[in-house]
């Protein structure tokens, strides 16, 4: 059967990630909440901690640790800051199409720079016309003299303003059934990030819009082949995007559980800590059960990924389960805190707001159910 324990090495990865999160990320969290800005060195520090190298193969300058390692790192970062975890996970999502679909030239050109954080990636699929319906994409391309000209707008893109190599999904102007992914780079004329969102949660994580006005993209920036765009985008989002949300959700669940246990042990009512009351104990048990289950679902899917298999269905299950569980956990944590659960100084208020953003990211819960039902019925 299966050994459900982490290896000694994986425990060390977790320790390294935890130390990084506690010493380098935690001090910035209050400022991020207040200003809705990440701190200046966040990308540099993520790079120094070798976070970007985790999924990039060794031959392209990465560490090739894999997706279980990625999930471990995300859990630990998210426990301290969901916003930073989200940023990091989407950088990873942007890197994935290069690994899976890049040509040798593209891999050599981009991956080593992604590994060191010199360049940052993201994926831009969602538009005002729909994210759940990617085929409704209106950003279009036209072939001109062997190159391509892109026009359109993407919204709700994480790292919209910080990523300098964006994988953009566009539809052929002349053929609505043909979609292609392009590497759009900062500096290309006509491409610019525009509006930045103020989200209710994950504050400090850059989410915004990008605009393309007659952007000339050279043929060598087609990623994964002309006409294959939907497959490329969905493969990346399906495995790595969803996987990243699982990491964000699990970390948040752990934070909710830790905060609830601490508060329940310190808060005295009727002469005893409230952790003695069954109503509180049951909420904590619910959180714990969801966390145990969510972890197994997430690591199972990541293990399949590490073994080279397709894991989008397993990740759909895990993404649905954990992001829903995180929202429940955050609400329970706030309830356990009573009146204090509404006060800014208590982290649980931030957890509640962060949990809202987990749902629609990388596919809504309803979409997850569509995918899972398709899997079950196939």
């Amino acid at each position, binding site marked *: 059967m299966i050994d459900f324990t982490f290896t000694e090495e994986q425990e060390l990865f977790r320790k390294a990630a935890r130390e990084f999160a506690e010493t380098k990320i935690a001090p910035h969290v209050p400022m991020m909440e207040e200003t809705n800005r990440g701190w200046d060195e966040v990308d540099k520090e993520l790079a120094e901690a070798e976070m970007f190298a985790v999924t990039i193969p060794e031959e392209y300058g990465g560490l090739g640790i894999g997706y279980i390692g990625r999930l471990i790192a995300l859990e630990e970062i998210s426990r301290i800051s969901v916003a930073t975890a989200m940023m990091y996970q989407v950088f990873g999502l942007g890197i994935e199409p290069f690994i899976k679909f890049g040509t040798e030239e593209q891999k050599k050109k981009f991956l080593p720079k992604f590994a060191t954080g010199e360049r940052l990636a993201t994926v831009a699929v969602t538009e005002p016309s729909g994210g759940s319906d990617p085929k409704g994409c209106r950003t279009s391309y036209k072939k001109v003299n062997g190159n391509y000209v892109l026009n359109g707008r993407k919204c709700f893109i994480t790292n919209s303003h910080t990523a300098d190599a964006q994988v953009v999904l566009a539809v052929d102007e002349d053929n609505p059934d043909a979609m292609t992914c392009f590497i759009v780079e900062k500096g290309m004329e006509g491409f610019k990030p525009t509006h930045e969102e103020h989200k209710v949660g994950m504050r400090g994580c850059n989410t915004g819009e990008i605009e393309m006005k007659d952007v000339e993209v050279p043929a060598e920036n087609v990623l994964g082949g002309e006409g294959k765009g939907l497959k490329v985008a969905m493969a990346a989002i399906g495995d790595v995007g969803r996987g990243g949300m699982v990491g964000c959700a699990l970390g948040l669940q752990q934070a909710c559980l830790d905060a609830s246990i601490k508060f329940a*042990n*310190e808060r*005295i009512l009727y002469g005893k*800590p409230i952790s003695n009351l069954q109503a509180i104990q049951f909420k904590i048990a619910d959180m714990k059960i969801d966390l145990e289950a969510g972890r197994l679902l997430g690591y199972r899917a990541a293990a399949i990924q590490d073994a080279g298999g397709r894991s989008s269905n397993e990740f759909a299950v895990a993404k649905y389960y954990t992001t829903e569980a995180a929202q429940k956990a955050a609400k329970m944590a706030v309830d356990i805190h009573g009146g204090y659960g509404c006060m800014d100084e208590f982290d649980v208020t931030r957890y509640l707001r962060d949990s809202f953003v987990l749902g629609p990211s990388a596919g809504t819960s309803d979409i997850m159910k569509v995918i899972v039902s398709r899997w079950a019925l196939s």
Partner: protein
Amino acid sequence: MSKDKAAVFVVAEQGETGVEPASLQLVGKARELADALESKVGVVLLGKNLSDATQKLIEAGADLVFQGDADVLVPYQAELYTEIIVKLMAEHHPEILLLGSTFMGRELAPLIAAKLETGLTAHCIELEVNPEGILEQRIPAYGGMITIVCPEKRPQMATVANGVFSTPALDASRSGQIVSIEVPNAFELRAQTLEVVKEEAEGVSLETASVIVAGGAGAGNLEGWHEIGELATILNAGFGSTRPAVDAGWTELETMIGQSGKMVNPELYIGIGLSGELQHMVGIVGAKVMIAVNNDPKSPVFEQVDYGVLEDCREFVPALTKKLMESRNK
């Protein structure tokens, strides 16, 4: 036990003003232990210009003072001191050897113990000879006290921090024997102290403060630590710490109060954000009023103080400081 034998020895230290207070305290204790063993107290004193110190040691209770008076003995040199003391121990075979938990003692004691292949207990709080004539050495640990013995090897060695035992009354009428010990002339030192440099200490001295504010892990971060420091300043108190605060880098080891740190004797002690761990609490000797501020209702500190405040120190301390400033300005 031969009545002429010095069964209890103390390695005394020459301080800046005569003899180190810890050495006098140890001689006082040695006197007690030697009386229980019906024996004498021997003291080793190494340094230069030792007559004043020697006199005080005799007045404190020493029967024999073995003096090593030479230029090469200043400053302290580990290998040389070890060589001299080990030789003396081999000649006199005492039952007990005590040293202060001073910087010198903490290095010298294990060097002597390893050479003599005997046992050593660090930072003792209590020393007592039991009915079988064995030295019971007590140290705080795990929220209580543990008793350690060294039943076979000799001498039974222990170090004790300054302030644990009271300074004995000096009796000018006491007399004692002074013995000069041979100091090797050309001793090759592989580790040689070239100089000892004093550094400026800041703030109210903990050892003499009548009010002490001590902070612990509950300060949370450097900002929280500074808040506690402000309270100490406005109360004109000594600002002490516990090990977690030192480990967190908020303060220096010099400010640590406890079994392996400083022993203090304030009138009023306020412990903030600390758990009341015994290793720290034994450092507070004889405070009239003790107060604790902590947000954990189960904290052991609340069993050891007169007044307890169950609040987050990050909330309570700034509020208290503010109130004190307001009443001051009235």
